[in-house]
């Protein structure tokens, strides 16, 4: 059973808060006493989806663990912008070691807590898509395979952003990055490469895998809280648009995340022990074009030298996701 939105209360649970809901129905983020795990003064770009996603996710984990949380962090934007020496934005016990070893560090912390008998202390590991799908992949797979008691959160902004927007194995086809320039017959990133990490995580048969976006806070909080109530290896893949790397306006970050989900390009679902158990349905379906056109990384597909056949191939990916995950509900198609 996936997150069930509350309807008929003006904005229901679509907004962060709602004065018409009962206190039990309130989100963590709407609370005045939320932890603000990553506090003001960090140096993320204007409108950073990752900074927002990290606060959403870690605040929810802090609330669920009653403040008994330790976070390990891979190298990446999140680590760089949150801890420029000698400052730190974090308001949780937080450790950074190397780019590729965050899952292993978290495994070690979990083992240490077990030895010390501190069963109430929970561990999260987090990293960007580079640190997760490329550089930390071996450690992560091992952590899954051993079913270590760690929640791993991947903040997916689809490229290596802080080093200058280089392609990662999470970069979508046709996207322009510094290393996949829009030149040649098939400009931008190649089709048919890259990794679908949520499905790889599911293939490990771990207790819980979920995807989420920063556009659906209530769904994200539900998934983090659910994950925190499970022991063993858990994986949440959080879609976080990047104004810098995607070439979008800083105020469009959430709209882009919403469009990724509404087009079907980023399926939002959850899975237990390798089996999909719930999906967040598309509410108002849009074409992939509506999602891609505002992004400069796809600019070469539109305009004077347009590549409609490439857009059609991407639409086919979205359509396949919609079929595969059952993202459209006849009643919900309005």
């Amino acid at each position, binding site marked *: 059973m996936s997150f069930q939105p509350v309807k*008929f209360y*003006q904005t229901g649970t*679509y907004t962060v808060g709602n*004065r*018409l809901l009962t206190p039990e129905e309130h989100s963590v983020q*709407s609370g005045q006493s939320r932890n603000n795990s990553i506090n003001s003064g960090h140096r993320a770009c204007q409108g950073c989806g990752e900074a927002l996603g990290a606060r959403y996710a870690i605040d929810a984990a802090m609330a669920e663990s009653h403040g008994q949380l330790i976070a390990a962090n891979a190298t990446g934007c999140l680590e760089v912008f949150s801890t420029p020496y000698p400052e730190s934005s974090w308001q949780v016990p937080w450790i950074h070691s190397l780019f590729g070893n965050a899952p292993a560090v978290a495994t070690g912390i979990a083992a240490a807590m077990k030895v010390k008998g501190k069963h109430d202390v929970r561990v999260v590991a987090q990293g960007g898509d580079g640190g997760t799908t490329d550089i930390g992949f071996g450690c992560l797979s091992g952590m899954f395979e051993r079913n270590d008691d760690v929640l791993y959160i991947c903040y997916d902004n689809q490229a290596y952003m802080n080093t200058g927007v280089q392609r990662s194995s999470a970069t979508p086809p046709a996207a322009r990055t510094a290393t996949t320039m829009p030149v040649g017959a098939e400009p931008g990133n190649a089709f048919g490469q890259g990794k679908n990490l949520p499905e790889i995580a599911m293939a490990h048969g771990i207790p819980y895998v979920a995807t989420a976006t920063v556009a659906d806070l209530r769904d994200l909080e539900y998934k983090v809280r659910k994950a925190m109530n499970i022991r063993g290896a858990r994986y949440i893949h959080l879609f976080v648009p990047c104004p810098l790397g995607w070439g979008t306006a800083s105020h469009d970050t959430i709209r882009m995340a919403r469009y990724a989900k509404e087009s079907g390009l980023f399926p939002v679902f959850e899975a237990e022990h390798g089996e999909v158990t719930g999906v967040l349905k598309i509410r108002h379906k849009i074409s992939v074009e509506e999602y891609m056109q505002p992004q400069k990384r796809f600019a070469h597909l539109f305009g004077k030298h347009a590549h409609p056949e490439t857009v059609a191939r991407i639409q086919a990916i979205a359509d396949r996701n919609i079929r595969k995950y059952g993202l459209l509900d006849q009643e919900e198609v309005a």
Partner: protein
Amino acid sequence: MQSKPFAITLKPGTSLANLTGTWRTERPVYLDRLPPCNHACPAGENIQGWLFHAESGDYEQAWRSLVENNPLPAVMGRVCYHPCEGACNRGQLDESVGINSVERFLGDEAIKRNWQFDAPAAATGKRVLVVGAGPSGLSAAYHLARLGHQVEIQEAGPLAGGMMRFGIPKYRLPREVLDAEVQRILNLGVKLTLNAKVDNIEDSMQQGNFDAAFLAVGAHIAKRTYIPSGDAAHIVDAVSVLRSMEGEDKPMLGRRVVVYGGGNTAIDVARTAKRLGATEAIIVYRRTREKMPAHDFEVEEALQEGVMIKWLSTIKQADEGSLTVEKMVLDDKGVPQPTGEFETMEADSLVLALGQDVDLSLLEGVSGLEINNGTVQVASNMMTGHAGIFAGGDMVPSERTVTVAVGHGKKAARHIDAWLNGTTYQPAPKHELADFGKLNPWYYSDADKTVRPMLDIIRRQTSFDEVQGGLNETNALFEARRCLSCGNCFECDNCYGVCPDNAVIKLGAGKGFQFNYDYCKGCGLCVAECPCGAIKMVAEET
């Protein structure tokens, strides 16, 4: 800078030393925009404001907020043509909010629970004469009384209400509803003198020692047109038909009734004739349905009840038991032109519903007045050319509806108050309009409009029971919660949530939010994701 060895523990939250607000080139600011419903309301109601309270189920507060501008919500919830709903932004999403039905629910709830108005302000010692106890006069009296003035209404008729009683049929406005709302106004200390026709306004003001007067005598003299007719032809006017419905002797119209005219009064009288037992009630109108001034839903309801309408026709001759009618065609400009084709229709009576004129006799000899097209000219402050005499409602040039009249009464009361204090009333500047483009409609739940129950057709044709039913508490709450709160914060916490820099401070329930410009980088996410358009970006001064 703290002095720390490299690669060692950093203190939590120390990034607060880094004031990222300096990056900003634009800053978000909270603002209130004018909701389209409020903008469209002739009575100047703060609709979004009272719906806000209704949304949380606080109906009494909603009602109190509503009556700050309009003392007749139960009447309004029945007879208003709700231009607010026509302007409602939700109409572009699914269907407009049923503002009128929620208003009626609140009005009925107030009657049921016997809610009374807040006590008036301290007495000013000023005396104001209101002439006419119709919607405009009652509204002015109410507002003046709340401002602390001593008010007397002098009404020529035997009962208060004006056209609400003697024009609008019972099946649209039950009289006990009207009586309850009038009585509540009188409970504020307003004195009502009935059967007191004012013959000369200056004499009446002098006799009663009044400091100012508000004239709202309405327009109740039926317009006539010349129709050649035999001696035995039965021709009456719509105003007297509707007025006599309130007396002991119901009008005798016969079995075949023809109504001449195309306004709401024509519809009212045809529907009334049907209820009085006419087998045929036929409206004769010289243009087409699209051109008809009557409101479409009223035309529709009349047709449902079996009223027939003969389009593109004028009446040329009336004789005993029959009429001669000429067919018309619309020319290029939409003006009806005669065709020379005639036909005869049977009719026991002909009711003329061709509009009404104002009885201006009470103004004879008053200096400074300007009368134009049979209406009294007033300045923007509702004052006539004679100092201290104000006028409103149907007797001044404007659209003639109950809602407009109520709006006149309020506006006049504010200016009379200022005039009595030797000042001028300056209305607060209007906020910019919250049009649909200012909203982020993604966030609103999908919810269709609640349809009000209608009386079954047989009872509509045979009785004067109210046609349209009301909402109950459950669906009134549902309907109120369909409001988008255009342009006004309703504390959804979106700005507080979506800020990646944690630069929005939540002040607590009812207190709203505030930006922390020390850290706000000016990304604009809060503006883009505000559902109701209550934040905007402004350039930083350089």
